[in-house]
Structures are given as C-alpha cells and as structure tokens.
C-alpha cells in the first residue's frame, strides 16, 4: 500500500461510519451493550495509543524523555489546563530533557 492509499482508505472509512449513523434505525442505540462497547472501545484505543506512543520505538520498548512529558501532561489535564497549553508543555518537557542529556 502507498501512503496515499492508506490515507484515502482510512478517511473514507471514517466518513462512511458517520454517514452510517444517519441511516441506521435509532432503536439500536437503546440497546445498552452496543452503546457500552462503542464507548469503551474509544477508551481502550486511546489508552493503547498512549502506551505505544510513550514507550514504543518501532518494536522496542524504551524509557526516555516522553515518560516525564506524559506524566506532566496528565497532571495538567487533571487541573483542567487547556488542551493546546498541555500539548505545548509536554513537547517542551521532552525537548528540554533531550537537550540536557
């Protein structure tokens, strides 16, 4: 697959899901299990992505400047700091630690 094919396929898939929501009967939503799974699916994927993004380096697990950056980010989100500020601070923490070591 080329990069463009990946991008187009993923974009169309996500858009198609949005359109599907307008086509299915709303009754499906009232079933608790599909709604609960969809909700937890988002949580699990985001958490898994955090783990891989923080610890992964290709197929290796490495402990580096990303870990303190993510811990700082979590702390800032906990005290309701705006998204863009937290992302910037996280980048600064990682960049600063790398510049020092």
């Amino acid at each position: 697959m080329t990069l463009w094919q990946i991008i187009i396929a993923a974009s169309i898939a996500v858009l198609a899901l949005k359109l599907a929501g307008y086509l299915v009967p709303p009754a499906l939503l009232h079933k608790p299990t599909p709604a609960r799974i969809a909700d937890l699916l988002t949580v699990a994927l985001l958490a898994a992505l955090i783990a891989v993004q923080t610890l992964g380096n290709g197929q290796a697990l490495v402990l580096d400047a990303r870990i303190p950056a993510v811990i700082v980010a979590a702390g800032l989100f906990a005290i309701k700091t705006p998204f863009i500020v937290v992302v910037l601070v996280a980048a600064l923490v990682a960049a600063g630690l790398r510049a020092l070591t």
Partner: protein
Amino acid sequence: MSEILAEKIGEQHQQRLATREGIAVGLATAAYGVSFGALSIAAGLDIWQTCFISIVMFSGGSQFALVGVLAAGGVVAGPAAIASATLLGVRNGIYGMRTAPIVGSGLWKRFAAAWITIDESTAVALAQPTPHSRRVGFWVTGLAVFIGWNITTLLGALIGDALGDTRAYGLDAAAAAAFVGLLWPRLKRMQAAAVAVAAAVVAATLTPVLIPGLPVLIAALVAVVVGLFNWLGTPGVPGGASTRRPSDGSGRDS
C-alpha cells in the same frame, strides 16, 4: 399574547447562546489542529496528505491515531493504521443516530451534517434546551470546528515542515499528550478507567512481539470483552457517557 412574545424572546436568547457556545468550541478545537498538522508531518506525511485527512476524515481521535500508528510503523503498518482510525470513528456513527433527528430531512443536508458529526458538534447540540437551539448549536459548532480545524491543520503542517527534526522539539511526546487529553474526560467511570489501564498494559506488552499497529488493535478487544459482560459496570446504566452526553464536557470544549 405577552406570553408568546416572551417565549419568542426566550427562544432567540437560546439560539444566541447556542451560537456563542459553538463558536467558542470551534476556536478551542482549532487551536489543537496545529498539533495535528505538525505531528502528521513528523510522521512522514506531506502537506497535501495532512490537509486531505483533516478535510475528509475530520475526526480528531481517528486522525491522531492514523498518523500515530504510521509514525511508529511506517507504511508497513498501513492496515493497522486504517483499522485504528476506523475503530475510533465508530463513536461518530453512534452520535449520528442521536443528531439525525435534530438535523431533519433532506439528502444533502443530512450528508453535510454527517460529515461534521463529531464529539464537539454532538455535545453542544445535545446540551441545548430547545429543538431549534439544538439545531443551531449543531450546525454552528460543526462548521466552526470544520473551518478552524482545517486552517490550523495547514498552519501546523507548515510549521512542522519548517522544524525539521521533530523529535528534538518533543513532538513525539506532544502526540502522546494529545491522546491523554482525548482520553482524560472519558475516565470518570471505574469501568472506563479499568479498561484504559488494561488496554495500555496489553498494548505495551505486545509491542515487542507483534508488528506495529497490531498491539493497539488487540488492546481494543479489552473493551469488547468488558463491554459485553459489563464487568465493573453499574447495573441498569446503559453504556457510558456517549449514551447521554457524548463529549462529557471535556476540558477543551468547555
């Protein structure tokens, strides 16, 4: 007579509030489009590809997931990147079931509405008290986020392009922090927090043994299993936040 007049003024007031809230959410969300643009360039995409994703896919979580998996695994991880982005897009379909009655009928109107059905537009729409203000809230938020997000994506891509070595600027850590921000407002329930911890452990443990992208997909099975049997869940409470308040009032949209 005066009662009807008061009602009309009240309705206009509600619509003004919905408009104001939608624009505020649009501005806040646009601010972090910059980080998507820069991270996408850091993952090896070009400016055109980055902007294409923000226009067509237009869903923050899925977009960050796509470039995140591609950054870790390259083009080889393509199928896993597509799958991650798609699975994260499932919730938009759920939102669509709730926003469809708000939008009303008309093929093109519904098509446009579906395109901008995301966390933010759904959350603002459902938070409004009257049918009309819900409709106003939905369209204003969706369009404000769409315009802002695409402008700032381009801006971020240009910045990322100018930076060169993005690791030195800590952009890899910024990507992880962005995911933390998307996850944070969803962790209020015990069940969600437990799923998050388990999924993170599964993904990290499998990283050294599986090709990039797959650990994230397998971690998603945690959600299916826990959701199916409703472990740690509250009996009688259907689903989590998405069945009532889709975005849960996360930090960035308040």
